[in-house]
């Protein structure tokens, strides 16, 4: 086993080759916030909430996607990082239309939790307020793009766990959308197995079971034993 020693927030820790900074930090009880990461799925570093400073350059790198190296000196929590993370959460909110009070995932939303954790009391920037649609063509599920934060967990769980490859990504920048079957309405998808894994991993209320009212969409990840933490315990 290739072992390397490094420092995170001044604490000497040990990691093994292939582990990410996030893996090592969490196994040493050092908290690094994430949104797109989910144990059991590959990492895509799309949310950038887990950025850390790596000495000596101080360059910001996503902890979920950077492997540990011998002698690394990492700052995982600082005022600067707190400010950046707060701004990231703010921009995630402003890019789409998030209205917690009338959301199916109210009180069960990771974005909402992060906003509370980072004390996001107001927005300094202007909201984009895009006009986005709800695709409710599927018999059991619906996607509300207003609430999607493009974490791509749905894309990953669909390909990596279910093997259906229904979900994909289209467009770029502000026009980026998660899509089913390359843009066909979800209800017309030939590949979707209606397993519902995408709904269960969604961190917000973007993907939900039809018929849910406000605050009734609660993730049921224990039903997904494929998603495990490093100790093999269901996430």
């Amino acid at each position, binding site marked *: 086993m290739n072992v390397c020693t490094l420092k995170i927030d001044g604490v000497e820790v040990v990691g093994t080759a292939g582990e990410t900074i996030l893996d090592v930090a969490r196994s040493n009880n050092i908290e690094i916030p994430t949104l797109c990461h989910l144990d059991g799925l590959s990492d895509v570093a799309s949310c950038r909430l887990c950025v850390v400073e790596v000495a000596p350059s101080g360059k910001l790198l996503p902890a979920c996607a950077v492997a540990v190296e011998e002698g690394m000196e990492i700052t995982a929590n600082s005022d600067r990082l707190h400010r950046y993370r707060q701004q990231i959460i703010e921009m995630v909110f402003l890019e789409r239309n998030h209205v917690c*009070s*009338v959301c*199916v995932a*109210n009180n069960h939303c990771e974005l909402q939790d992060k906003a509370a954790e980072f004390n996001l009391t107001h927005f300094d920037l202007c909201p984009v307020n895009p006009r986005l*649609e*709800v695709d*409710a*063509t599927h018999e059991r599920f*619906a996607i*509300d793009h207003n609430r999607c934060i493009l974490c791509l967990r749905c894309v990953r769980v669909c390909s990596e766990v279910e093997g259906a490859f229904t979900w994909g990504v289209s467009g770029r920048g502000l026009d980026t959308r998660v899509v089913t079957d390359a843009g066909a309405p979800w*209800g017309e998808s030939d590949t979707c197995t209606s397993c519902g894994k995408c709904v269960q991993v969604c961190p917000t209320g973007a993907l939900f079971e*039809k*018929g*849910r*009212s*406000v*605050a*009734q969409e609660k993730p049921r990840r224990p039903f997904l034993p494929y998603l495990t933490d490093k100790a093999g315990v269901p996430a």
Partner: protein
Amino acid sequence: MTTKTTPNQLIIDPVTRIEGHSKITITLGEQGEVTDARFHVTQFRGFERMCEGRPVHEMPSLMARICGICPVSHLVASAKAVDAIMATAPPPAGARLRRLMNLAQILQSHALSFFHLSSPDLLFGFDADPAKRHLYGLVQEFPQFAKDGIALRRYGQHMIELLGGKRIHPAWVVPGGVTSPLRAEVRDEILAGVPDAIERVRRALDWYKQAMSRWNEETEVWGNFPTAFLGLVSEDGTAEHYDGTLRAIGPAGTIIHDEIAPTDFANCVGEAVEPWSYLKSTYLAKLGYPDGIYRVGPLARLNVVDRMGTPRADEELAEMRSRLGRWPSSSFHFHYTRLIETLYCCERIEQILRDPGILSGRVRSQAGINRNEGVGVSEAPRGTLMHHYVVDDDGLVQRANLIIATGQNNLAMNRGVKQVAQQYVKSDKLTEGMLNRVEAVIRCYDPCLSCSTHAVGQMPFHIQLVGPSGTVLDELATP
């Protein structure tokens, strides 16, 4: 945007998404007489457009956000409209629990309207110094009265919290029923509060009845004109706030419409829009616009029913009818009827809670989209509330239409303002006393602009006196 006025200019004041802004324009003829008066609602909400494209199951909670005073009323009417789209009905316990929360809502809102907002006028007099004619003045001079009002409102609000988890905007009422059954300890806690609530309403009612003669002049000229009345009635002719069918009667009790199912509401009421107000005016379709003027709310409800259906409220209703006649027409009597209805709410809450079936664990029905259109009608504190949705096959809202009590009272409020203006405006000068009276006649209807909790006891009014040539002669605004 606010444009300051100068003589010969009308004020344009479309302040969006704020609550309770209104304006009154009084127009004078050649001889200085009042020829017209209009009550303008200058705020725009746009909820009917906002919900287009949303999943219909979200509608109850989305619609509840219209108002912080009566969110439960919107929850209930909206959930019923979605029930209709699902072509399902809640289990009996679910329906009873919804009914219970609706009654709690009416109780707390009526307490707010009568005690907190209207009673300072009634106790201190309409010409009393505004510096003491408010809730705090009430606390100082009539502490028991103030305590009763606060306690009744607290009781209703606490009941909503016990049932739905929070006082304002509980997400407990959902399509198909409610999210959780009633626990025995919650039932017992609510039941324990009923005798105290009844005692407090009785005290206010007794005082009101002995003081009524003080307001004979106001009763004569404050919205005292013949109109039709509309409200929900149960099958046996008793009061109904959750289910039942619509009944409209003429000023002398003639039945205009009866046993109108909620889905057929459009056969009963029409909607008109005037360019000078964001508030729609509804009218009885059979009589046309504007002859189809009608009123909703406690006065209308007590006029359309045969009896209330609870012992104490029935006694009070009989006494009221012996004092005022079978179909009282003055809008001043909204206060009296509001108190009787508050008493009814307490009694009905007790009746519902004494039913052993209320603790049943089966409180929600599940169904998908089985119809493309649904209507939900219930009685809100201020009157009949109608939600009408059209959805596509996937359950996304294509069109929503809300008919809210204040809109239904709009024609009558305008006529009431005109009546008061004709009585009190005798020159080209507005006086403070006149302003107070115009405020108070509007307050009889307890309009939800959402006005009722603004600057306790005072609505943000702006009154203009306009001469025959359109010149603004005088204007007054509450600070």
